[in-house]
């Protein structure tokens, strides 16, 4: 009886304020789409990091002939210095460094020649123009600073370079995009809360007579307020559902079917990621409705 009665009440309430209900659905839809887009961008960034950081290395370039660096005052890095560095990688940085690969200047020249068989921009380089280097694979790419501190300044080391830097600007751009998305989402979420508040207030006012009688005959607070709470929640969750659907379609057609087909060397977010953020979006929608309801109902349907 109770359950059915409440359902009837909800149905009536939603139909009575149909235009308001639709606007709540749409505003939550748009705001949660922004929230979802921000979350997906973050997921994309994580994926890229996972994917690329596995491949990137720290390069320790050794002194070539005629370097101006202070540590290279003794000329080209000597075999003793190279041995000393290897010991450092093994002992001091044993925990951080997973793998060490030494590239002599001959190796470097070989791979250079392979890349530019006709010389680089018309110059004729020799083996001595190349420099030897260590390629370090770190156990955790985030520990670059530790390695840098230990290695930089040692005799025979010209410069230490983190390949991750190359990606920094890309990640910066992606991070800014997701921040912007979060900002827009915040504004839209505020609008959604205000709109739900207004909707519930209207609904409560239009049912003042009913709620007045309910109070008098001793209906419990929960019973009186539940239809209003659920009305707001249903509209908000509908909006969240639309947002999830919209994001899923976007990811499917824009990313999976198009971007992933044309640029294949990058890992992309997919439908599974959308489904992973779906509960978050639904939760936010529910929370929105709850906040709005608590604010409104205590003022309009109090015992």
């Amino acid at each position, binding site marked *: 009886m*109770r359950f059915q*009665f409440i359902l009837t009440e909800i149905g009536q309430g939603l139909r009575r304020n149909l235009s308001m209900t639709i606007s709540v659905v749409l505003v939550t839809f748009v705001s949660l789409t922004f929230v979802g887009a921000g979350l997906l961008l973050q997921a994309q960034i994580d994926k890229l990091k996972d994917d690329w950081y596995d491949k990137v290395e720290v390069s320790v370039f050794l002194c070539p002939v005629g370097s101006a660096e202070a540590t290279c005052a003794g000329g080209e890095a000597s075999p003793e210095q190279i041995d000393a560095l290897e010991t450092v990688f093994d002992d001091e940085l044993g925990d951080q460094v997973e793998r060490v690969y030494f590239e002599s200047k001959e190796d470097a020249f070989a791979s250079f020649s392979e890349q530019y068989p006709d010389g680089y921009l018309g110059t004729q380089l020799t083996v001595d123009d190349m420099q030897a280097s260590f390629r370090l694979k770190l156990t955790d790419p985030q520990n670059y600073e530790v390695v840098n501190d230990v290695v930089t300044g040692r005799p025979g080391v010209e410069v230490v370079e983190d390949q991750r830097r190359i990606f920094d600007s890309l990640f910066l751009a992606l991070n800014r995009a997701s921040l912007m998305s979060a900002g827009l989402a915040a504004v839209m979420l505020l609008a959604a809360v205000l709109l739900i508040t207004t909707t519930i207030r209207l609904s409560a006012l239009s049912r003042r007579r009913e709620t*007045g*009688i309910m109070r008098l*005959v*001793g209906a*419990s*607070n929960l*019973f009186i307020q539940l239809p209003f709470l659920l009305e707001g929640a249903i509209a908000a969750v509908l909006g969240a559902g639309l947002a999830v659907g919209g994001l899923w379609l976007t990811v499917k057609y824009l990313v999976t079917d198009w971007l992933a087909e044309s640029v294949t060397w990058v890992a992309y977010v997919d439908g599974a990621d959308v489904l992973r953020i779906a509960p978050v979006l639904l939760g936010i929608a529910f929370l929105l409705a709850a906040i709005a309801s608590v604010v409104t109902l205590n003022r309009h349907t109090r*015992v």
Partner: protein
Amino acid sequence: MIRFENVTKVYARGARPAVDDVSMEVRRGEFVFLVGASGSGKSTCLHLILREERPTSGKVFVAGRDLRSLSSWKVPNLRRGIGVVFQDFRLLPNKTVFENVAFALQVIGKPRHTIAITVPETLEMVGLAGKEKRRPHELSGGEQQRVAIARAFVNRPPILLADEPTGNLDPTTSLGIMRLLDRINRTGTTVVMATHDDDIVNQMRKRVIELDTGRVVRDQAHGSYVRSDEETEPLTNPDPAPMSAPTTVVRRSAHVDAAAGE
């Protein structure tokens, strides 16, 4: 059943108290008129009994419960034991007579079969059998008030409050309503009725508590009432017979011998 102990209610700080140091007791099964001019504090007393307002000072007891210390989540339970009737009926215009009465049971979670039994029984008792499918606007004022009474009484509350229930009705219709309230009273229900209709008070010969600017000025067992705005105009009927002999005992779930017509 209802006890006021030195109850004072001040609505706005510094304003004159709406109820000023009122002490009274209404016993189980009594029929009490609460009389007085507008603004004398009758309605405030009813609000206090319903715990729609809390006293500024003093104590209100209803059915053994101290309303001052009653936590707000228990208020609905208190109100399930009190039926209320108003001057303006307060029916739901888009519901039928049956639905209006059933509404009171639905919202407190009564099972459907209980509603299916109790509602027709109550409608028959108030004399509205056969009008279940009408909507309020299709009924006369007296009939609408009967629906309101049915709604207030359908849960068989031990207490029935009536705030000017005859205020919108003509004298003949009012009489019918009073007969009905009297019948309800004789099922053992305590009835408190706020009114300033002196004709009715004088015909009923029940206990009268008169309020004036928030104070009890009279509490009389079989009282009469003279409206102050009518000066000392003599009563139309100086010695009215009580409407019904208070000896017949009516069972609580009253079977019906057709309520008085309108």
